[in-house]
């Protein structure tokens, strides 16, 4: 079982702790580089998330696991209604926010890409929709979100079951290979609608896997 401060760090960041708890966290941070790293990741994600529309992701698979299993309740009888944390910058939520960033920033591109594949244009308008490639800004948004999530995953790595970490890393390797192949193909045919949408789906899948991994419960 880990002695790190996952749960307290979020509250610490939000200035929700009482004086004694805050002092305890700061004393721990002074001696624990891993928790300091986690805190820095959280702070970076908070800065990024602060610029976002806080729209939830379409599919949030693991929040339930993280919330229910990650907690070590000491009461003999559990609350009858699952406790809902009010909004706070926990790692999973920030990860979700990072995903929301990408979702938002790519929505327009997706629409444009789909239109590019449409066979006809409105009669009489004379307008021709040119094929639109996955833009640099979109790619940067993905790269930023992926980088943040990878930092968060690195910070949590020692707290997760080694077998699960191995599966996650193998899956990321598979996805990275797909992304590399899609990018290579796009370099030769940058306006190909299929290749653009294919790359975007691969990036989405990578975000999805990372987000799941960051939200996984701590191994016992």
């Amino acid at each position, binding site marked *: *079982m880990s002695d790190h401060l996952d749960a307290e760090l979020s509250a610490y960041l939000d200035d929700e702790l009482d004086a004694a708890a805050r002092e305890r966290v700061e004393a721990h941070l002074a001696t624990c580089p891993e928790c300091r790293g986690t805190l820095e990741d959280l702070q970076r994600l908070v800065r990024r998330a602060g610029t976002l529309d806080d729209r939830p992701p379409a*599919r949030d*698979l*693991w929040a*339930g*696991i993280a919330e*229910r*299993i990650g907690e*070590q*309740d000491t009461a*003999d*009888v*559990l609350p*009858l*209604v*699952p406790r809902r944390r009010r909004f706070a910058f926990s790692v999973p939520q920030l990860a979700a926010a990072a995903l929301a960033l990408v979702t938002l920033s790519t929505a327009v591109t997706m629409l444009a890409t789909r239109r590019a594949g449409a066979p006809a244009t409105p009669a009489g308008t004379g307008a021709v929709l040119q094929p639109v490639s996955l833009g640099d800004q979109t790619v940067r948004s993905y790269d930023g979100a992926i980088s943040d999530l990878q930092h968060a995953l690195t910070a949590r790595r020692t707290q997760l*079951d080694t*077998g*699960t970490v191995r*599966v*996650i890393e*193998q*899956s990321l390797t*598979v*996805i990275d*290979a*797909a992304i590399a*192949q*899609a990018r290579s*193909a796009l370099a030769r*045919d940058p306006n*190909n609608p*299929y*290749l653009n949408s*294919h790359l975007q*789906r*691969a990036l989405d*899948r990578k975000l999805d*896997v990372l987000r*799941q991994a960051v939200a*996984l*419960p701590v*191994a*016992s």
Partner: protein
Amino acid sequence: MSTRIPLCVAAALCGAALAGAPTAQAQNRIDTTIAVRGAAQLSVTNQSGEVHVRVWDRTQIRVTAEYDRARVEVTATGNRVSVRSSTWRGDNDVSYAISVPSGTAVEVNGVSTDVTVSGVCGEVTIQTVSGEVTASCLTGDASIQSVSGDVALTDVRGAVDVGSTSGEVVVRGARGDVTAHAVSGDLTLEDITGSQVSGETVSGDLSYGGRIADAGRYHFQSHSGDVTLRIAGTVNATVEVSTFSGDLESDFPVQLPPGTRVSAHEWQFQLGTGGARIKLESFSGTIELRRGSATTNREE
């Protein structure tokens, strides 16, 4: 207004569990039955072990648990029953066998937890990390996710969203909409009669067997895996095929409409009257469009 029914039962159970927990060889068992009315809800959280949920014909939820070192808590309010295992160091496995009324909504969360659910008509939500999931005879909607465990679903009548990162996903006999996804695992969708079906995997193979509804929407994609459709009966569909370096093999005539612009990567053609939309994508794998056999597809 909620009523906490079995406080004394829960406390007694917890006490019994705590009393037995420190002894490594001790085999603890609890067995409790809780009356429910109408649409009940069951929530189970078990870090490791097994959870088996089946339906019985009583308006009660019965929970049995066997374990060596864990704390098991059963609480209820109104029609909601919560079952939770808290862990001790060492062997934390808890094996649950739970019987519920048919319409109960079931939610199971686990880590190294194998889950089996059968006959439930209510909504089913299952999330596990490395456990395997087996579910059958589900009438309500289902959301089932695993990281590395295999998932096998049989006879699903509601809509289902199912995924495993590295495990294999098999859905046999689905009448509702199906959304399936994996990274390296294979996706096998057989005997599907739902009209909105999608499957996505990165390196795994994807196979679909079933009918194509005239107004249906079907989207299957893989990066390096093969995508195979075995279609039973008459098919009226517009088929879009996209690939980068893969192949298309078809038992059906592929006739491009006059004037169609042919791309090296994408084709679109029509089968029958073209009502349904089928989108098939594989970056480097083979896309196969096959006539299904009676043994693998249910004819209507």
